[in-house]
């Protein structure tokens, strides 16, 4: 008889956070958080670092409704961690404003001029490429958690004292 296993995922409205129990250490050294908790307590579309290694970041974004357009000089990656999210892509008519020497995403004002490239429909566990210099935005009909692999930039929010176990 083959055993049946149940794989447990979390979501923005259903998660069970773990933690650090110290014998002889400081829990703050573990910079411990839960991405669903971060998303649940975030405003839509803000991107909050939950991990940082020198300049590189893992960011959590609460997708809800339609986000602003964003663009980045380097690749980024997004993973849908719970509910459905659509990623829209646009090739900008004018890329001169994208500074190759600057890291991290930048929010664009309004509807930037450019050609629609298409869209990707992400479900739980799907990862998409956000290619360099291509504008993208997220659309979600209900609050959803996105995990982004990126590099720290001026719009990356760091709120360690708010999100981490102390």
């Amino acid at each position, binding site marked *: 008889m083959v055993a049946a296993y149940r794989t447990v995922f979390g979501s923005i409205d259903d998660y069970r956070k773990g933690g650090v129990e*110290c014998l002889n250490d400081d829990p703050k050294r*573990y910079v411990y958080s839960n991405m669903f908790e971060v998303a649940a307590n975030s405003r839509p579309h803000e991107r909050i670092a939950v991990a940082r290694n020198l300049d590189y970041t893992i960011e959590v974004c609460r997708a809800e409704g339609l986000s602003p357009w964003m663009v980045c000089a380097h690749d980024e990656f997004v993973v849908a961690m719970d509910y459905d999210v659509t990623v829209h892509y646009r090739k900008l008519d004018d890329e001169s404003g994208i500074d190759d020497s600057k890291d991290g995403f930048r929010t664009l004002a309004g509807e930037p001029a450019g050609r629609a490239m298409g869209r990707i429909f992400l479900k739980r*566990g799907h990862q998409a490429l956000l290619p360099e210099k291509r504008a993208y935005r997220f659309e979600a009909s209900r609050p959803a958690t996105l995990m982004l692999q990126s590099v720290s930039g001026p719009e990356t929010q760091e709120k360690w004292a708010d999100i981490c176990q102390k």
Partner: protein
Amino acid sequence: MNQQLKCTVDSAAVGYQTFTIGQVKFERCEYFAYINCPKGEHLIPIDAFLRALMRDVAWGFFYGTVAFDDVFGTTNHYGNVDIYMGSKHSEWVKAGRDYVENFKSDLLMALFRAMLSDWTNAGFDPFAAPQETGTAFGRKHGNEDSLINRKREVARRMVGIPGDAALRSDDTGFPVNRAFLDVDQQQPVIQAEPGFEGELHAYNFFGYLARSAVTWNPSVVSVIRQSLFCPTTEEFVLPIDHGNDRVEWFIQLSDEIVWDIKDGATSAPKAKVTMRAGDVCAMPGDIRHKGQSPKRSMLLVWENASPQIMDMIRDGTVPMVPVTF
């Protein structure tokens, strides 16, 4: 070492080769690996030893220290490697019984590969969870070279992009693991406008992980310069105690892993970390960690392979924690 106390290993009877490098000798019997150095001898149950050895070999001695247990392990200096016995345990050091010998990495790797091949019998997969494989014990019979020589899958940009690391499928020898049969396998729907068909890329990341044939063995799925997403599936116990020489991060994607944390230099216990789906945790650069996963789980290990970190390790400025608050 007091030679009168040295264990007797009848290699001729059990059929395994003995391996010697410098002043360190490795022998095995039906149940144990024996590591001999001028300061003493240490035994490790052979199943645990081979699981740890498999990781040390597959990961090229990895980052920092790969502790097989609290006594024996290797420390990577990137081009050369220490074998140590007792030097990461305060009691061995206090007793003056600690021993370290340094070798060129390629020499030690050749010996470890040969040992892994000779000591792994047919029916035992050192990468598999215990319920998925046979026994490591007994006298020499056959080998599992095709399993121990698996190549690590490393994406240059992202899995699934044409020319990059391929998706896993039944046809390519990656069936869905028994513990992840409930994980959805549908690929994301991509609607590209004409002319942009080759520019939109996405894949089922959780579905990909569900098809991993190994445990505790990260692959690389997405890359931004030196930022590497290295997910892995975990079941039972991490075969090594990893003493990283830099910060690394864990993101629990599913289920639960409990980590025992020890001091990297003394083996003294420091903390217990229980990670559940969605949890994010840094592993400081001065500890060792060993994970226990009661049910096969998905873990994202996030590594920074920056040469800048190598410089910082060399000059002693590498941060032990990623952020302070």
